[in-house]
């Protein structure tokens, strides 16, 4: 635009009076006691007042809420006197009709030669909208804080140790469980500190694997033992996934350490069990195969006097294999929760007596059965027989020199208590709590006993299924008494 034309235009536009009154902000002048001596039209419009109603009639404080008035007296006036100006105070002004609107308020004190304030010039900007956004921002911030607290709460209470690292693997966050496991102060933990807590046998492997994943940026998972603050190692599954930015850069690694100690120990036990089971099966199987070979050789001479003995032995070994497989199947059912109980009425004394027959035939033990010969019980006869045979077999196996076995049963406190008592060496107290565990095999004095270590576990499950209790009382050097109960109210 031509400079001359612009100047010409400006002389028309700049009328100070018009500028003052039509400015997009409010102008106000008042005396030290607040009496308004000048006000522009914009502010009058906002206040819904005419000039006549306001000039010399109203004080600035009249337009303020009570809280605003206190603030004005206690903050605004001293501040203005001391510093000569105030900036950006946020006030609420009342219109003639009692509605409120928000303004940003700045003021300059006009002082006389003695430094006395003689008037105050103020500028007011309507910031109702801004107030609205401030409020929204505050709400948003409070929400964000709340979310943050929730997340922290979750992160701290999750059962896993949680951590994050920078793209190059330096730990920059750990959750409360992490800090607690390692007892670190201030939630600061370096990568080196972490490596120190890894079991010596696992450290090198972990370092190599982790370094490789850091380089290629792929999810990571590793089993290792971590030393807790008590110096005890526990197996953990360490998992980590990279978090990428939109540009496919790694921003962070998120990781967790899950305690898999019990799981790991259970697996170890299972491995051991499989090895024991294979071994147990292998022995009778080898024997059986040997016998079959012999039988094959002598099949042309059926009159051989050894024949019937060979067949006997073959049968014995096949039965042995059959019973082992039966135990395995039982355990399989128990684990799957499929153990079925078919209750029927039977005579307990007769059942016990039958169980004893085969032991008696071997003529090593004398068996004494004590109890009401007429007592009828409602239970799964086959399963109860299984339990009794197991108890008896255990006694035969672990107390071979006992001589006498006492099997007694009696009704007591709403239940039938059945016990199998030997005069064997007894069981050390520390082993008793584990006797009914799965895969537990008593290792007494280095001698190895045949079996899968499943017998008592199966017994316990059967008794539990009947709603009964089970246990063992034992005294070293005197003998042991294995017992179980069947509740009468179930009968």
């Amino acid at each position: 635009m031509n400079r001359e034309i612009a100047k010409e235009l400006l002389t028309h536009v700049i009328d100070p009076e018009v500028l003052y009154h039509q400015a997009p902000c409010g102008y106000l002048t008042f005396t030290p006691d607040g009496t308004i001596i000048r006000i522009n039209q914009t502010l009058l419009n906002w206040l819904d007042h005419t000039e006549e109603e306001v000039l010399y009639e109203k004080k600035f404080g009249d337009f303020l809420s009570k809280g605003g008035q206190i603030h004005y007296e206690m903050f605004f006036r001293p501040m203005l006197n001391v510093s000569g100006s105030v900036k950006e105070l946020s006030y609420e002004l009342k219109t003639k009709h009692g509605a409120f609107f928000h303004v940003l308020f700045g003021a300059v004190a006009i002082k006389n030669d003695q430094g006395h304030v003689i008037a105050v010039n103020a500028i007011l900007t309507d910031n109702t909208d801004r107030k609205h956004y401030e409020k929204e921002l505050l709400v948003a911030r409070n929400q964000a804080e709340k979310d943050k607290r929730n997340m922290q709460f979750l992160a701290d209470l999750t059962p896993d140790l949680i951590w994050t690292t920078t793209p190059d693997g330096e730990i920059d966050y750990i959750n409360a469980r992490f800090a607690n496991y390692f007892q670190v102060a201030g939630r600061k933990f370096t990568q080196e500190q972490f490596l120190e807590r890894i079991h010596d046998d696992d450290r090198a492997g972990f370092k190599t694997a982790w370094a490789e994943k850091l380089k290629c940026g792929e999810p990571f998972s590793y089993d290792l033992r971590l030393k807790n603050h008590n110096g005890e190692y526990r197996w953990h599954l360490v998992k980590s996934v990279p978090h990428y930015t939109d540009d496919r850069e790694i921003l962070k690694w998120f990781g967790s350490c899950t305690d898999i100690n019990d799981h790991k120990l259970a697996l170890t036990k299972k491995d051991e069990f499989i090895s024991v089971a294979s071994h147990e099966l292998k022995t009778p199987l080898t024997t059986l195969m040997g016998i079959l070979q012999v039988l094959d050789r002598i099949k042309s001479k059926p009159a051989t006097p050894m024949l019937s003995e060979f067949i006997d032995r073959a049968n014995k070994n096949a039965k042995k294999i059959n019973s082992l497989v039966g135990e395995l199947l039982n355990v399989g059912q128990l684990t799957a929760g499929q153990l079925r109980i078919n209750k029927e009425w039977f005579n307990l004394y007769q059942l016990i007596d039958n169980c004893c027959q085969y032991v008696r035939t071997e003529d090593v033990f004398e068996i004494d059965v004590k109890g009401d010969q007429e007592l009828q019980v409602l239970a799964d006869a086959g399963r109860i027989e299984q339990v009794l045979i197991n108890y008896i077999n255990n006694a035969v196996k672990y107390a071979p020199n006992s001589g006498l076995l006492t099997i007694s049963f009696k009704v007591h406190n709403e239940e039938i208590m059945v016990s199998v008592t030997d005069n064997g060496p007894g069981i050390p107290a520390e082993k008793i709590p584990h006797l009914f565990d799965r895969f537990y095999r008593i290792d007494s004095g280095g001698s190895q006993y045949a079996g899968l270590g499943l017998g008592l576990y199966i017994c316990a499950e059967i008794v539990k299924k009947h709603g009964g209790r089970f246990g063992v009382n034992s005294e070293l050097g005197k003998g042991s008494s294995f017992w179980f109960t069947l509740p009468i109210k179930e009968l």
Partner: protein
Amino acid sequence: MAVQLHPMESILKRNNVNVIGNGEQVMLFAHGFGCDQRSWQFIVDAFTEDYRVVLFDYVGSGKSDLSQYSSAKYGKLEGYAQDILDVCEALSLRDVIFVGHSVSAMIGALAAVREPRYFKKLVFIGPSPRYLNDEGYTGGFERTDLESLFEFMDSNYLGWSSTMAPVIMGNADRPELGSFLTNSFCATDPEVAREFARVTFFSDNRADLAKLTIESLTLQCEEDVIAPLAVGEYVNAHTPNNELVILKATGHCPHISEPGETIKAIKAFL
């Protein structure tokens, strides 16, 4: 190792105590709520020739040591009264002329009831023993008025930029936003100001007035929203040995708005 300050020195530092003037007689000036010792700048010069003038900031205000602030102690006016007694003790003051503005009038009264030996005369500027109206008592405020002030203060400590921004963003990691406060008049931490406001406006010290034994003066402005005339009259009526002077000055801070008139009234009393 931290240098252990002598108890006296540590009090002087804690309360940012300044001693000026030439006289023998000591005048102790205590600022009101929302201010600090700079609020006395318009009148102290009139006294420094004849008096030894002691100025200080309450803990939490002005340039006091903010780290000494505890809500437990300063949640009651007695905590502030202890500041006054500490200053007297640290400077070994006796027979002090105490000048207290606004809530400091009552803080000074509490201190003088507890340890009268430190004080000779008390000057109350705009005192109020209770701001809330009560049955048979006009304090000037309803509870809702005060709630509106607290709300107002929350959104408006020293202007938008220095309050809203930190409030919205959380200023923990933006110390530069907080530094606005220390450079401004009435340099009080917003949290402290909020608590100071509550303890000021919700206190009721009417019963303490009668216990005063020290001669006192009440300076009451004709028009004061914070401490209306009726309150000044109440103080005068219930305080033994109290003189009431009504100033022409308006507002709650005559020592700032009308220093001349205020000086004259104080000198007449002394």
